[in-house]
């Protein structure tokens, strides 16, 4: 519980008020895009009934209207529970998981001309990286856990439920394709 007591002292990365306002503006822009695209398709009553944009146009309109109310409320500082949206330390924590996860998906998918490694090898690397980096585990323990978890997934998906996942060069070399 010591963490919550210290919270007011922690440096805030961004205030709730600013974040609330920015998100409301983004909703407005989205609503406007929906309305614009609907008018492009035709949001009126055509010869054979409602056109493709008829229903979405209303959706966009309501979205814009509600977003304006939210933006005004955010500007006035209504329904704000905590002044800080996220503290610097919490944001670091979030990024310390989010960035490796993005890197993990890049490893699976590949970037541009570089082919992906499939689902399994990146998963071993991802779990192992977390264990070493955040959990400070020894290598033997790390490899045992990460490899056995992924082997269980392999058995479950490829063999038991017959749902193929992406595979890379290692699986090809082992003849598991």
């Amino acid at each position, binding site marked *: 519980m010591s963490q919550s007591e210290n919270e007011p002292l922690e440096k805030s990365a961004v205030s709730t008020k600013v974040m609330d306002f920015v998100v409301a503006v983004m*909703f407005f822009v989205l609503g406007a*895009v929906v309305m614009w695209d609907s008018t492009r398709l035709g949001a009126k009553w055509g010869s054979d*009934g409602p056109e493709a944009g008829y229903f979405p146009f209303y959706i966009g309109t309501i979205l814009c209207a509600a977003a304006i109310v939210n933006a005004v409320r955010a500007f006035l500082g209504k329904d704000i529970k905590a002044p800080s949206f996220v503290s610097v330390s919490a944001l670091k924590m979030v990024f310390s998981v989010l960035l490796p996860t993005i890197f993990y998906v890049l490893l699976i998918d590949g970037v541009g001309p570089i082919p992906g490694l499939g689902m399994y090898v990146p998963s071993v690397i991802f*779990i192992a990286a977390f264990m070493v980096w955040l959990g400070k585990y020894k290598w033997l323990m790390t490899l045992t856990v990460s490899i056995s978890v992924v082997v269980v*997934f392999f058995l479950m998906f490829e063999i038991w439920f017959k749902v193929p996942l992406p595979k890379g060069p290692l699986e090809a070399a082992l003849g598991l394709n």
Partner: protein
Amino acid sequence: MDEITSLMHGFSVALTPYNLGLMFVGVILGVLIGVLPGLGGANGVAILLPLTFTMNPTSAIIMLSCIYWGALFGGAITSILFNIPGEPWSVATTFDGYPMAQRGRAGEALTAAFTSSFIGALVAVLMITFLAPTVAKFALKFGPKEFFAVYLLTFCSFVGMTKAPPFKTICSMMLGFALAAVGLDTVTGQLRLTFGHMELLKGFDFLIAVIGLFGIGEILLTLEEGLAFKGTEGKINAKIVIETWKQLPKYWKTMIRSSAIGCWMGITPGGATPASFMGYGVAKNMSPNGKNFGNGELEGVIAPEVAAHAAGTAALLPMLTLGIPGSPTAAVLLGGLLVWGLQPGPLLFTEQKDFVWGLIASMYLGNIVGLIVVLTTVPLFAAILRVPFSIVAPVILVICAIGAYTVHSSMFDVWLMLVFGVMGYVFKKLDYPLAPMVLALVLGDRAEDAFRQAMLGSGGDVTTFFSNGLVGSITVLALAMLFWTPVRALVGKIRGVAS
């Protein structure tokens, strides 16, 4: 007593060794999902849904609904032992459950919680058994305009009944509708909101949204709150169970009240979470021991658990009879029905008897299986919570990624899941409710079809939604729900001035 005959037939469908085995697997997976942070009922079912694509629909829904029961049971374990609600609907269980555990009465609290969950579910299943066929028969009379009015009622109730600021609820709901509109318009064949991207042709799959919003978003939130779980030991043996069971009949009034609240909140899209709070609040006001609530009162565990489980179960009634899910998890199950080629709605009861009654019978059996599993395996699941976060977090993220991929075997979906994850994190922190968005995403196309057909029928006249008694009263009810909060505030003010 057609229902009894149908139900007996249902038992004969559900009671095969294969289906019973699936029930056990489902409940155990469900408890696991309920216990682990970041894997909740909705996205747990979403992740496992692709695994059932090849099964026959009845077995598949039995397993998936058992995962849901398991998750409902599992939420209580973390609430009582660790003071961490594994699911939002078990927040109210922490109020009295954790104090009990601190005083060494964890076994008693857990037994009471599980048994109450079971009772709540049983009441709701009984209600479904006898009410669902009637509702379905009634709904057979519905045309497009009636269906649109029911959709309207569903969404308006969200605005009126959730605690989130109403305009934020509207925003997140409209976002769901907008996302549902993306892709090929089935009526005109035109592409909507794709802006030339081929990946968007098929639109957004709500399963991906659920995995991202509830899975990744939840992990990011959990990270902020710190990683250590500090908990008390939970021991359950036969003696504690029997001692607790002896105490339970005393609280029959609380159970009836909470069951009623739960059934009502489950059918209307209030869902299990508000039901549990309401059950707790009402019990606190009505009980002679009300003042002692919060200090480890057994009744304070019973009340929210009965209500949450009744609501969670009752949410399947509108899903089966009208094709309108009462909760995000019910929405995912509805998505499953569509994948298996079943059309949810009133016709299900006449055309897919085996499926419907097999499912209803499995609700009885699944909850019995669930009760047995949780009472016998609590220490095991409590041990899982002691696995450090640095192992649990990456494994859950890997599961989410695999889950997102398997929906359409597409990497684009995995990226999309990450985007939804960040969105879920931001929305949660800013009080934008996620459930209306998911439901709008699921129901968007169906609501739009109903609207278009109704409009076609009337030649574009909106007053068609008031054209007969039935559709008119549903529409009026919907509008009443929409303006419920401001009207109540206004009435309160007038009364305040008058006095």
